[in-house]
């Protein structure tokens, strides 16, 4: 089986490009993969099945969805909410009608009217505040023979949304153990708390800063490392306080070194678009204890590797308590770190993840044809003995077929 592989790739800067850079070598060891060139919407010649990595960024993924529309295939859904992507592919291209249609499909007449309001600039863009209410995921699911996602949370969202095709949950792969030198030594600073990535409101940075301030009351030598570029509306420079180290634009090696210097890594999120976190997986690879929000994919991390903080009015206070607990309990950090390394080597092992990809590609790539072949035989026999499509016997046959795995 030859697989056409559509994804952003380095040097493009995105989590999904990094993801593919990690996955592709392992996948290529197991199955014949032809990588599609950026912006080429035609699958590479001779391929049997297409695999599309889709995220919410229109600059990175619009061409991939264009390719998907030409030829259905297996979609790797890195975000469940795709409103921003769809807005970019419609309004961003001057296709107001396309946006109206997408909104109407998600929310009927109300959706269409709201879309009119946005297109006419009478309403603020929906993707800034209310994207989760209008995920617009159907634009991608229409062409999906099946979906790979990274969490039960997204699988549940897909079913709620009405997607009836096959869905496979494949864990995020972890980076293999990395040799690090020149790890920053934050002399006299302890504990070192790290938060990395694109820093925006959804990463709960104000709540993190408040929690850190509380932590410093008991641990005055604590250091918070905030690494990554900042969303314009966050005004982080004004908010940064004593004990906080700001690092911008970390290249990959520098990012790893700074992660390695942390005692605890914090990765908060709300609202979630159903996304995963490459930073969390990097932290697992390095054996770092985690504090995360109790939402979406993050809530599915094992208790042994992450302490989960509810997103509520006590969020900052709870987080401060979690950080204090981790700062004061060396044995707990050690246990969580060990468990993180084990998780990286097992559940998130790149070989294991690549095997699950091959399984999903093989199951879904020709799965509908296989099911159809079996169903056709059975349907012909049913017809021959006078069972028609409305008879309950057919439901019985369908139920038995599902029991042996011949459903989705």
């Amino acid at each position, binding site marked *: *089986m030859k697989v056409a592989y559509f994804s952003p790739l380095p040097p493009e800067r995105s989590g999904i490009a990094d993801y593919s850079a990690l996955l592709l070598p392992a996948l290529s060891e197991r199955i014949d993969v032809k990588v599609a060139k950026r912006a080429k919407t035609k699958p590479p010649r001779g391929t*049997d*099945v297409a695999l599309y990595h889709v995220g919410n960024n229109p600059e990175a993924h619009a061409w991939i969805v264009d390719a998907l529309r030409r030829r259905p295939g297996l979609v790797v859904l890195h975000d469940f909410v795709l409103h921003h992507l769809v807005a970019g592919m419609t309004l961003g291209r001057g296709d107001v009608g396309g946006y109206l249609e997408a909104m109407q499909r998600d929310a009927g007449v109300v959706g269409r009217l709201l879309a009119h309001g946005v297109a006419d600039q009478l309403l603020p863009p929906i993707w800034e505040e209310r994207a989760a209410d209008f995920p617009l995921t159907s634009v991608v699911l229409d062409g999906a023979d099946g979906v790979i996602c990274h969490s039960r949370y997204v699988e549940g969202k897909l079913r709620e949304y009405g997607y009836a095709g096959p869905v496979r949950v494949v864990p995020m792969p972890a980076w293999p153990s990395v040799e690090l030198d020149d790890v920053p030594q934050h002399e006299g600073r302890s504990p070192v708390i790290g938060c990395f990535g694109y820093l925006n409101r959804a990463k709960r940075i104000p709540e993190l800063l408040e929690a850190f301030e509380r932590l410093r009351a008991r641990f005055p030598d604590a250091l918070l490392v905030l690494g990554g570029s900042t969303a314009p509306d966050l005004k982080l420079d004004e908010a940064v306080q004593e004990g906080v180290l700001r690092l911008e634009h970390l290249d990959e090696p520098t990012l790893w070194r700074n992660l390695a210097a942390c005692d605890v890594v914090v990765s908060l999120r709300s609202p979630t678009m159903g996304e995963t976190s490459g930073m969390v997986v990097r932290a697992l690879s390095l054996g770092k204890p985690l504090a995360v929000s109790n939402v979406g994919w993050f809530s599915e991390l094992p208790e042994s590797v992450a302490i989960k903080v509810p997103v509520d009015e006590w969020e900052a206070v709870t987080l401060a308590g979690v950080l204090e607990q981790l700062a004061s309990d060396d044995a707990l950090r050690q246990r969580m770190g060990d468990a993180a390394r084990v998780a990286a080597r097992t559940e998130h092992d790149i070989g294991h993840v690549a095997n699950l990809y091959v*399984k999903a*590609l*093989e*199951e*879904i*790539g*020709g*799965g509908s*044809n*296989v*099911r159809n*072949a*079996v169903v056709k*035989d*059975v349907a012909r026999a049913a017809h021959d003995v006078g069972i028609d499509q409305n008879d309950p016997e057919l439901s*019985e*046959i369908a139920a*038995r*077929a599902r*029991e*042996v*795995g*011949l459903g989705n």
Partner: protein
Amino acid sequence: MRIAVCAPQVLFERGGTEILAESLAEQLRRREHEVEEIRLPFKWYPGAAALREALQWRLLDLDQTHSNPVDLVIATKFPSYAIRHPNKVVWLVHQFRQAYELDRAEFGQFGEDPFDRATVRAVHRVDQRTLAEARRLFAISRNVADRLESSTGLHADVLPPPPQQLAYRPPQDGEYFLSVGRLDRAKRVGLLLEAAALDKGLELVVAGEGPDRERLERLSTEHGLDGRVTFAGRVSDEELADLYARCIAVFYAPFDEDFGLVPYEAFLSEKPVVTTRDAGGPLEVVVDRQNGLVCEPAPAGVAEACAWLAAHPDEARAWGRSGKLVAERITWDTVVDRLLAA
């Protein structure tokens, strides 16, 4: 108890699974159980036919008959274990090997196109779901149990089947090397023929029928073995017992076989067995230089082993007697007790 013994039936053929199912049913009846053998024809090609057959088994309703419950279902081999029953026990002869260890190997059935790959995966799903729902899993050999565990994560206890009850005769001085079993490529009878081509002193009797017979007869002619090889075809139980009694040793070397009743029958005839290092199940009973010879899976290795046994009749007789002690330990009492206690 009212017991249904389930096995697929390859039409007009009678091999290990058919014998096992018949023998089990017979042994259960002897112990005063009511027993029905449930057979459905099995055709595993083309394309996704094996899945259609699995669905056919699934559609059977064996919960009760004439308002009387069927107390126990014992399923044996793919796809019979897809059957639904609240008290299902599987005595696994083997899974659909073309979707597992034979896949992408010499004896595989499926290619690399998406349809074939999806069919293989769908077979895995059938197994995962329908074997996992069994109340207890047994496998006929360690080899089969290990394959099951590595492919599905399911554990099966090893429960070897006793060999069929032939009228075994006292061993006579050997005249030839005997191959017994269905003639298909995976049984590798060709290895024995090629060994005979290397050693002009070897005489062979090949008992059994199957799709590989024509090729084997051609091979025999090409190697000039006419006169030294007899293709006996399908033989009666009596003839088979006689063939065992008069051979020097039995050659049995399929590739990665599940279990193999033949070595047990050879041992009950007090004959040693020649097998190969990659034979799988037979290696669980054939111990090199104790009750047979285990050689490389190549004509030269087989020829050397056969020549050695022909030249050392005392050792061959002693190893045959040693094998008999192994075979006699496997009894139907044990098998029935364990299956019914499950």
